[in-house]
């Protein structure tokens, strides 16, 4: 039991590594069609067999990991940035501005993120957005559907921290708003939302796959697990591997990220990892202590 957090990390870590080094791991071009090798089982030439167009399943799974990783990273970074900026601003400024922004956040949170993303994809599919590729439509839609949670958390942290005496002390000493926010508050905010984002990554991978499953995400021939699932559905009777393989990959990654997030929340992650993620938080705490001592002196 002592080492179980490392086991939790393995699929997520593997996913990230495979995503990063996909071009060097793939044995075939994932888009290359071979009509002489349709729906073949695993072999030396094709480790996980081939799909209905004779494409190498192993390479498509690896390529799919990269597609999901890149899309997930874009959405997480963008949603996190938007959420932190809006939430922190609302919490720091307060008053009517906070009320308005909180209302917007509440409205965004009132609907499931996937429903918002689907609605936005519907809007983006119109003539006015035909200049955008399906991939970027999906990134933008998911970002706009995902930021609100981070905004709510950021605002809550900011409001809590503003009540602390050391903030009052910093103000008394003439520290600027930007100084107070960036040196004393932002590290707390990031400490929390980054931990939350680690758990959110799994949900995001699933959302990307869901949109692709519905035909609204990544465009062919780019391999993507959700798309592989839906394409394999037509062949589920005679070649269930077309559904099982991407399904297993998706399940492993989502479960792994969820457990990782939970482990973070319960502080069960290995010390080295926890230390890396929480280093910023400790540094912030040290800065606060220093400021407090300075005021007391």
């Amino acid at each position, binding site marked *: 039991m002592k080492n179980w957090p490392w086991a939790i990390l393995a699929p997520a870590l593997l996913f990230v590594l495979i995503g990063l080094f996909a071009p060097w791991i793939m044995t075939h071009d994932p888009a290359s069609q071979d009509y002489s090798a349709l729906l073949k089982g695993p072999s030396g030439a094709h480790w996980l067999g081939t799909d209905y*167009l004779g494409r190498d399943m192993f390479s498509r799974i690896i390529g799919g990991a990269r597609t999901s990783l890149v899309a997930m990273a874009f959405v997480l970074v963008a949603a996190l940035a938007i959420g932190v900026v809006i939430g922190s601003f609302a919490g720091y400024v307060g008053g009517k501005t906070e009320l308005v922004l909180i209302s917007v956040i509440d409205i965004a949170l009132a609907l499931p993120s996937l429903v918002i993303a689907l609605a936005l994809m519907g809007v983006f599919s119109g003539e006015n957005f035909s200049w955008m590729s399906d991939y970027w439509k999906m990134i933008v839609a998911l970002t706009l559907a995902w930021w609100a949670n981070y905004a709510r958390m950021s605002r809550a942290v900011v409001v809590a921290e503003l009540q602390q005496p050391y903030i009052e002390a910093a103000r008394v000493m003439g520290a600027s708003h930007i100084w107070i926010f960036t040196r004393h508050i932002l590290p707390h905010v990031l400490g929390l939302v980054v931990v939350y984002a680690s758990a959110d990554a799994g949900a995001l991978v699933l959302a990307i796959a869901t949109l692709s499953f519905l*035909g609204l995400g990544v465009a062919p021939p780019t391999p993507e697990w959700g798309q592989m699932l839906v394409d394999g559905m037509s062949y589920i009777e005679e070649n269930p591997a077309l559904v099982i393989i991407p399904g297993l990959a998706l399940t492993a990654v989502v479960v792994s990220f969820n457990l990782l997030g939970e482990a973070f929340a319960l502080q069960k992650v290995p010390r080295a990892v926890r230390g890396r993620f929480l280093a910023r938080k400790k540094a912030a705490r040290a800065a606060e202590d220093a400021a407090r001592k300075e005021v007391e002196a």
Partner: protein
Amino acid sequence: MLKLDRRSFLATTAGLSFLSVLPRVAHADGHADTLRVAIAGETGDLDLLQNVSTLSSYSAVFDALIHYGPGGALEPGLATAWTIAEDGLSISFDLREGVSFTDGTPFDATAAEWNLKRWMGVADFSWIGIADNYDNITIDAPNKITVKLKRPVPAALLELTIVRPVRFLSPKAAAGQPIGTGPWIVESYSSTETVLVRNDAYWGEKPAFGRMELKVVPDELARANALRAGELDVIGGDWVAALSPRRAKALEGEGMTIVAEPGTATTILGFSPKSPMMQDKAVRDAIFMGIDRAAVATVLFEGYADPTADIFPTTVPTAGARTPVPARDVAAAQAALTAGGWTGDASGWAKDGAALEIAFLVSEESFPGSRRIAEMIQGMLMEVGVKTNIETVDNATMHERRPNFDYDLTFFATYGAPYDPHGSLGASFVTASDTGPDGKIYVHPDLDALVATALETGGDSRQGAMQAVYDWLRDNTAACPLVVTQRLWAVNPRVKGFTLPATDYDLPFKGITLG
């Protein structure tokens, strides 16, 4: 304590197995005189004037003056004979005598006139040539009428075979009551099932069984599983409950009878007439030559499709001379681009600073399986150096973008029998026609004139006028026909004598006996 030795265990198992079989035996016995057919959508009340009910169920209940027979042969229906005036401006019909609607109302000239006036000369049905050019109807005798037209309509007789709105309803039928003269009477209908019982007073060949249950099963795999489980007898038909080639192959290996016959509808790759890229004939030629139609038919349709380079298959009347199906030729496709002023190779092409990149609009909702065909074509064109971006959209978006030609490439299909060739030509290749969300395959002023001439030309000149349209489409590479999908049905072994209905807009029951 219960003691279970081997003998009692076997006896118990055998008993339980027998008991488990009983319901199925009872189930089969209960359906001995019933044909159970899958339908993809509910039939509704079979309103002949509203586009709400699935098309496939009308022909079981309602008759037309003329019926569409195998190969497009015109067969007597409620009219036993017809005569077209030499000037083409009137058509006289001898009505079948002794026929009554199933509510007892006699079918005669008055009933025929009442029915025809419901849609002839009505703006909503101007897409039907005979309705658009209708002048008046005269009753010549109790069982003889004449329809007079403002202009000749060469396809008038074929138009009278279509499903809606031309079929005949009892003039005394209340709203929502589907009462016709056909071989079946609607006993009940709901969102899950429509039950038909045999019309024992039917004027034609009566069905050999007394009851037909149309089960609504929207999902194709669920339909196949229901057939396997013996809960359905027949599945298939593009407009009834489509059966995919892949599923047909699987069912064939499990002892089901698969009936496949040459189809009447062509799957076509349409080039947008408003796309600057697609207005370059060199690009259209490159796409036309860069696609392996035989591979599409074999790989994605399991051989249940026939590659084609023509707009209409020979199963449709006046389909024109055959164009040899071109073999895929990457070098010729690239040569066409070079001749058109494009520079490049398999890695990409450019002209006047613009890269050759095509938007390929696809909707699985509008055309199931189209994304896989698009992926295959994308791979083929990639080897030519033509980059295609597949845009997968929902039905609503497809219906918005297709009429506006907001795409470079997209899929179309001709209507098939009994609507073609006049139906698809008059709608999908004419600038002024109103096709609503379906869009048009290709339009051009020169083509408008040719189609207008073809649709107005009758008699011996008709074939030549139609051929002029086909030649123009081929010479200008105005569209890229891919395959003609075969008509596919899967039948439970208890169904004997299954023959395909004349069109996929009809239900199968003629000649069928139940074992």
